[in-house]
């Protein structure tokens, strides 16, 4: 634990999910399953098993020769499983953004990673 270095120049991030319908959007969260660690567990699960680290041989989960197609497949499975409460919102989609902060928790910028199409159960990776 605590092995990765955190210094003054370390960048911090948070993933945020938005239910988008026409011009409106609302922040949503993965379906919880209750319990002591549920909220933090889902974040860690998502990172360890779905998003995975870009660091080579990371202890947090990495995939050798990861690519866009494999990434989209993993994300599709995750969204299908963890956003079941939005299965009925077939006219909406779920957007995934990553927010970037500095060491003091001050917001710097955000990037959109992609969209989950609720009807087709597909995640489309839109970042370049």
């Amino acid at each position: 634990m605590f092995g990765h270095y955190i210094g003054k120049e370390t960048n911090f991030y948070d993933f945020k999910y938005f239910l988008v319908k026409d011009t409106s959007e609302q922040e949503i969260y993965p379906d919880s399953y209750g319990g002591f660690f549920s909220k933090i567990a889902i974040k860690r699960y998502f990172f360890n098993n779905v998003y995975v680290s870009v660091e080579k041989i990371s202890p947090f989960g990495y995939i050798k020769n990861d690519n866009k197609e494999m990434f989209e497949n993993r994300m599709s499975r995750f969204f299908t499983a963890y956003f079941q409460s939005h299965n009925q919102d077939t006219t909406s989609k779920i957007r995934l953004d990553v927010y970037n902060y500095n060491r003091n928790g001050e917001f710097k910028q955000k990037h959109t990673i992609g969209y989950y199409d609720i009807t087709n159960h597909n995640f489309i990776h839109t970042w370049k």
Partner: protein
Amino acid sequence: MNTISQQKSNFFERYFFSKSRYPNIGLIRLLLIALCMLQVFRNYRFLDVFVSIDPVRDALHLPSTLIGLFHLPFPIQKEYLSLFVIAFYTAGFFAMLGIFTRVSVFIFSIMLLYIIDIQAARGVFDHEYTLTGLVLLVMTFIPGTGNFSVDRFISWKRNKAKYSNTSFLEAMIGNPEYIWGYKLILILAACTYFTSGLSKIRWGGLAWLDGQTLTYYLDGSASPFTPGEKPMFISPPNVKEEEKWKDGFGIYSYSYGNRQQSPFWRSTGNALAASPKLMMFIAASVVIFELLGFLLLFEGWSRVIYLIGAIIMHRSIGFLMNLPFLSFQLLCFLLIDWHWVYQHLGKRLQLMIDKLFKRFKLPAN
């Protein structure tokens, strides 16, 4: 040449196959399982958080290789929860008290590792229970596990010929046993501490020694109880361009939280974190201490001092971050050969201890 080979052979013979009653493996079993059950009950009560969520999510949560070997339904199916809870706590009580000792210790350790595995598959790896689970698993086959048990008590009561002139305490402590089991537990603990130090250098590099990482965890930045955004994912400032393909940033890992709610300990952490030199000293001390984990494999004062140091380290992290790792503390305390310590104290201290415990005359090694 023969002499060197003979010396090596003698060393290993003495190191693993000499006999001793202390530290007493049966006593470690009893107390470690008691604490483990209390902690599981405090955190999870009747284990309902380990049941199946829904088929779609369950399909994503896979067991580890060890648990996979047992081909158990993963996670616990709702209809079997009551049965599992009864089996878990019954096995725990039997293992703690020593009824069908080895069988119940084996069943309890596997059930403990099984629930840890469910939690890990869902995102949270519990470092504390993992070491406890492995130590208990080792206890199923090492000498001395049956000490301090109901099984031994029954045997003592029934088998007059075997236990003639043996007091209750002597029977519970048992005969001297091969110490390889004790050494195996020490090797597990040494690996745990050594790899913990190694991972800081492996993933954080020598920069970890500048104290900034610890400062982050102690100055309130990682506390969910202070105001402001608390993003948990991190990356260094110099991410390579080819690592940014997913999001334009390139995220490396997540950080942990400091869940200490006590205002006193939070302000103590803040005060420590305000001194960069002190944080640098603490960071360097922690890494050096953890890397010296192999000292546990040596006999004598180095092991005793290391174990006391480990208890102090866990207590400090407990105070400052609410991560006390109580079972690590208990295990370290019980791994100290207190009988050896007593023998190596000055005469005066020995007399004081004799007075305190005059009713309990312990048998020799």
